[in-house]
């Protein structure tokens, strides 16, 4: 009885101000999808970051016969003795966790494998173009980098020392900036959504003032008077969320997943990540609409 009555009232309310309801659903949908996109972005950045963290953090490129830097042209390509010396010296540094020597052949092999999707690019690089190198893993990249760099820099046979994290930092800055922009827009839209919910509920309360007047008169409890409005807000929120769930699935499959082609490794978000974000969006949407309509009504339906 109660449930049927409430849903009948809700249906009347939603139908009576259909345009406002549609506007509400659209705004909720867009703000939730933007929020969700921001959250997916965060997860995506985390995904790539975790990948890199387990990787090489410092590369020491050695001189080859094709190197053009003044240092290499002066000393010539790194000799096996120089390489062995570097290896022992690096191993003695307490800041170094591990080192791996990669020969030119190995480097070329890895390069071919990582860019196997792009054969035209692979064909432009020759076997001797990629220098041999030491891949050094440090305990603490930022603090330890200068110490290690100092020990090996300028030695015969050493071409370039590259801090991988400094390259990644720029990449992360870009991603973080994009994420922040998305989140700021999402928050502005959520504020708009809250105001729209408040307005829609107010309009609905005004439309039904006759009913609510009689309800109060015959002694309906405050909760009973407010429930249809509350459910109305929550249902609009749920519809908005459904639309946003669709949009989020689209964002993931049509946009984020295509990022994969720019990465040699797996950065694709799992379905669990997506479901997590969608569920979070639902909770936010429902709480937002429910709380807003409840607070709006408290001002309009006093005993």
């Amino acid at each position, binding site marked *: 009885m109660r449930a049927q009555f409430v849903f009948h009232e809700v249906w009347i309310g939603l139908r009576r101000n259909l345009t406002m309801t549609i506007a509400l659903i659209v705004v909720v949908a867009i703000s939730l999808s933007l929020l969700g996109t921001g959250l997916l972005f965060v997860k995506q950045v985390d995904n790539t970051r975790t990948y890199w963290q387990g990787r090489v953090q410092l590369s020491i490129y050695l001189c080859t016969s094709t190197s053009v830097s003044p240092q290499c042209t002066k000393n010539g390509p790194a000799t096996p003795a120089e390489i062995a010396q570097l290896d022992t010296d690096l191993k003695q540094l307490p800041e170094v966790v591990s080192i791996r020597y990669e020969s030119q052949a190995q480097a070329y092999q890895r390069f071919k494998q990582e860019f196997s999707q792009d054969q035209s690019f692979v064909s432009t690089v020759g076997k001797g173009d990629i220098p041999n190198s030491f891949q050094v893993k440090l305990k603490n990249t930022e603090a330890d980098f200068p110490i290690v760099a100092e020990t090996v820099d300028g030695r015969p046979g050493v071409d370039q020392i590259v801090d991988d994290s400094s390259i990644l930092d720029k990449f992360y800055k870009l991603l973080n900036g994009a994420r922040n922009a998305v989140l700021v827009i999402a928050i502005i839209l959520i504020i708009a959504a809250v105001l729209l919910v408040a307005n829609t509920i107010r309009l609905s309360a005004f439309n039904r003032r006759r009913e609510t007047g009689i309800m*109060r008169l*015959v002694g309906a409890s405050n909760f009973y*008077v407010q429930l249809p409005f509350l459910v109305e807000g929550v249902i609009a929120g749920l519809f908005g969320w459904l639309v946003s769930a669709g949009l989020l699935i689209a964002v993931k499959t049509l946009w984020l997943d295509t990022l994969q082609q720019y990465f040699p490794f797996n950065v694709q978000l799992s379905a669990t990540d997506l479901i997590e974000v969608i569920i979070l969006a639902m909770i936010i949407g429902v709480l937002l609409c429910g709380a807003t309509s409840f607070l709006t009504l408290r001002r309009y339906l006093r005993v």
Partner: protein
Amino acid sequence: MIHFDNVTKMYPNQSRAALESVSLDVEKGEFVFLVGPSGSGKSTFLRLVLKEERPTDGRIHVAGKDLARLTNWKVPHLRRRIGCVFQDFRLLPSKNVYQNIAFALEVIGKPRRFIRKVVPEVIDLVGLEGKRDRMPDELSGGEQQRVAMARAFVNRPMILLADEPTGNIDPATSIGIMKVLDRINRTGTTVVMATHDAAIVDSMRKRVIELEYGKVVRDQSRGVYGQAY
């Protein structure tokens, strides 16, 4: 049933009190007319009984409850024991006779079986047999007021408040309305009716309380509308 003890009601921004030091008692099962010119405080009295307004001073007891000590969330329970009828009927235009009456029970969460049983009974009591599917705009003023009375009475309240129930109705039809109110009163329900209608008051010979400028100027059992000392 209704007990006013030295009640004063001041509205904000008004120099004169709407009710001034009103003390009176209405016993269970009584039928009381509240008479007096417009602005004499009749409506304020009814609103105070419903706790739609709070008195500036004095104590009010309704159905054994001290209204000052009644918390806001218990006010609905007070109102379930009080039925209300107004000059303008206040029916829902989109609901038919049956639905309008059932609405009062639905919103206080009564089970459907109970509603199906009592609504037809009360439709018979107010004399609207065979009109349960009519919409309010298909009914005459008198019939609409009968629907309003059915809605006010369907939950068997202890008190029925009527604010000029015959104000929009011609004298001949008003007699029928009064008959229904009398029938409701005979079931043991206390009836308080605010009115301007001298003919009705004179013909009923019930207790009359006359208000003037917010003060009780006459309280007479088996009274008439005008001054009749």
